[in-house]
């Protein structure tokens, strides 16, 4: 059935993979020619990483096959993947900080001397060879813990290359790199492909894809949308493939009356070191907060919520409040959806009910005992109104899809009736459909007269759903825009440090 042109060295055919509650991959196929750079494009949650994990033996596919040189192979685990020449560089920096560059590059392949000790000279020599081949100026003896994230990324690439792979998969390798490093990395990739290496390059940065790739395959919601030659396509076409719907459908913006300020923050510093900042947010308003990595947004709002130390005046509904801990913050009417859903938001070992009601347990005590029936009733109400897809209120949240997990954490803030909801990247890593549902929820929250502070690093959703936008850089606000004043360009200019205050509130 699969059309093979006889040249493909690696093919993944009709791959299907489901997780409880979500079909991550649905009949996805991709093939790579020798010496080709094949880009894999798609939004967060489109299924790129899942596909790669199937290739790398981290997940096993429910259906479909993997062919190498036209012959079917079974990739049961990562070790086997390495054996058949597949090297994958994952997004996470999976290095051992306490060891040297050489130890990391040849991890699992340490050269041994005749009597079985590690041959340090050979180790250094072979690492140096790999580094030289890639044109990198890193000392093999340097400890990884002393390296910057960008250099770590290069060490990871060296590690992959040292295993002489036939196929190299890179999952957003440039997210931590500066322009110079990216250029260097691309030169390395091009050089390697000239020697016959086949590359699958995952990214959602269109510039990189046009710069580097020969063909592009676009995934959306776990399905193949298109495979095209890079030369024969353009940005707009790729974006249409990726998003698959008009932006107006994505962002269900409705007219909501914006009332008095609910939260007023004045001369507030996070952790003592940064500049003091002041801002207000009104009832019925979605205040978008944008900033690049390291701009200090998470820090500022964590301090406001009492997770870390903060200093300054905070007034909620006209009353000055003192916040030293998240407990204080919640009492004062704040709610925070943390940045890292799994690490900071969810108790994965507990049920949907428990996660929804975690902040509100004391509310369900009668005569000293927790009332399970009351709790379940309450949880079922939230499951219905938030449309959390689960097998029941008792399902363990570990097995829910990302979007439904996020809704459970969001539901917790609604359960305690928070007046100001700080949502830190609520749509990160969840599929497109769930994103739209989260936007709708934000609108509904505002319609009840509450306020939403929406922290995000994705411009389209920032512009699509915010009533007002604040931009942060270096721990302070560098820009403020009303909904109709904001453009991608203005926001980016403010995000890199230029002061642009289009509106005064």
């Amino acid at each position: 059935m699969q059309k093979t042109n006889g040249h493909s060295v690696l093919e993944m055919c009709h791959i299907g993979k489901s997780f409880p509650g979500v079909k991550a991959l649905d009949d996805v196929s991709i093939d790579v020619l020798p010496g080709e750079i094949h880009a894999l494009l798609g939004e967060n949650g489109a299924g790129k990483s899942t596909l790669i994990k199937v290739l790398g033996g981290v997940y096993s596919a429910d259906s479909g096959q993997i062919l190498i040189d036209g012959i079917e192979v079974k990739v049961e685990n990562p070790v086997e993947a390495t054996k058949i020449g597949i090297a994958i560089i994952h997004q996470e920096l999976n290095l051992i900080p306490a060891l040297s560059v050489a130890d990391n590059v040849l991890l699992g392949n340490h050269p041994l001397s005749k009597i079985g000790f590690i041959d340090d000279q050979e180790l250094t020599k072979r690492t140096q060879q790999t580094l030289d081949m890639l044109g990198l100026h890193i000392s093999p003896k340097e400890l990884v813990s002393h390296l910057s994230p960008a250099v770590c990324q290069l060490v990871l690439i060296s590690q992959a290359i040292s295993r002489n792979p036939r196929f190299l998969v890179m999952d957003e390798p440039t997210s931590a790199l500066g322009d110079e490093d990216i250029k260097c990395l691309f030169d390395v990739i091009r050089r390697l492909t000239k020697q016959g290496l086949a590359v699958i390059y995952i990214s959602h940065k269109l510039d990189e894809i046009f710069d580097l790739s020969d063909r592009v395959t676009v995934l959306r919601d776990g399905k193949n949308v298109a495979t095209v030659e890079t030369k024969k396509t353009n940005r707009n076409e790729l974006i249409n493939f990726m998003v698959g719907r008009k932006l107006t459908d994505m962002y269900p913006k409705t007219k909501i009356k914006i009332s008095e300020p609910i939260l007023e923050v004045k001369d507030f510093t996070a952790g003592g070191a940064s500049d003091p900042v002041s801002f207000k947010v009104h009832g019925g308003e979605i205040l978008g907060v944008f900033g690049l990595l390291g701009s200090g947004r998470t820090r500022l709002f964590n301090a406001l919520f009492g997770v870390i130390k903060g200093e300054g005046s905070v007034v909620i509904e006209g009353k000055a409040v003192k916040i030293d801990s998240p407990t204080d913050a919640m009492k004062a009417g704040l709610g925070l959806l943390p940045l890292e859903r799994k690490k900071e938001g969810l108790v994965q070992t507990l049920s949907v009910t428990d996660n929804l009601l975690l902040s509100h347990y004391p509310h369900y005590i009668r005569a000293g005992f927790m009332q399970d029936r009351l709790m379940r009733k309450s949880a079922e109400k939230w499951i219905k109104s938030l449309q959390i897809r689960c097998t029941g209120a008792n399902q363990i949240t570990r097995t829910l899809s990302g979007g439904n997990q996020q809704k459970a954490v969001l539901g917790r803030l609604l359960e305690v009736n928070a007046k100001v909801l700080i949502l830190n990247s609520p749509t990160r890593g969840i599929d497109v459909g769930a994103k739209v549902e989260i936007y709708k929820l934000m609108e509904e929250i505002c319609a009840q007269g509450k306020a939403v502070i929406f922290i995000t690093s994705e411009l389209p959703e920032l512009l699509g759903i915010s009533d007002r936008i604040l931009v942060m850089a270096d721990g302070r606000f560098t820009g403020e825009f009303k909904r109709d004043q904001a453009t991608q360009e203005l926001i980016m200019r403010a995000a890199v440090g230029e002061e642009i205050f289009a509106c005064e509130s």
Partner: protein
Amino acid sequence: MTIKQEAARDKKNLLTTLTTILKGSYGSNLTLLITLILMIVYFSLVAENFFQLDNMMNIARAVAITGVVAVGETIVLISGGIDLSITSVMAAAGMTAALTIRAGAPFVVGILVALLTGALIGVINGLIVTKIHINPFITTLGMAQIIRGFAYIISARYSSTLTVPVEGFSELGRGRLLGIIPYPVIVLIVVFIIAHFFLTKTLAGRYVYSIGGNPMACRYAGIDVDKWRLLFFAICSMMAGFGGYMLTSLVGSAIGNAALGNEMNVIAAVILGGASLAGGEGNIIGTFLGVFLLGTLTNGLIQLNVPSEWQMVAAGAVLMIALFIDSWRSGGYK
């Protein structure tokens, strides 16, 4: 629908139900219960004195004190901690209680003193873990040494054995209700029932699971995590203090090396019962079964005249087999 189809459907339903039970949160308990029953059947067949009321009571009495202490350890383990100082606390609490009662106080006051001794040490453990941020393993390992040291220092003043020559003191440890059921067994059952309700029905119990599952998320959810963890350490040590009192009552005296090295047996029983070392998972019924499984094994092997060295080997092997079954049941070690 034909009868045949119906039967096939029923069979399928039964299978699904069984799988659900096995994979459910009490699934490991079922594995344990089956193992325990098989073990009892085996020993009954090969050792003639094994399956008799008297011997069954012996098993129960032998595990009673371990069981009471294991309850506290279960709470701390599920909450994501560990307490290695329990047996030192037993020695120290036994000693403070013995001193109190020797001075003429009623037994109830002695019990209160034992509980207080435990609670105090638990609070110190908890403070070190939550305020100075030293991990519980190291904290309680150090505390175990310190407390054991004090126990030796005190007992040295009484030529190493602090006897309690008071009429009726040993009744709790050695007596039997109606001459049949040993008092420690009754205590054990009461403690287990209370602990089960504590973990499943109270706010503190919910927080044991929540904090053990993800302390960071609990903090973001507005829960005063430090306060609760402190409480869990205090409860654990308090239970150890009570265990120490029971041991002293059983022996009739407090000694410096009381229960020395037994903390690993307690932890083994709790882990066997399905509590996760990573926190967030476990339950009291599991601990109950874990404690009885190890106790039955030891008793059975004694009945078969297996040397004590080989008893240790067997106990270790059972623990590993149980963990193996459990990891296979829940989808394998990752």
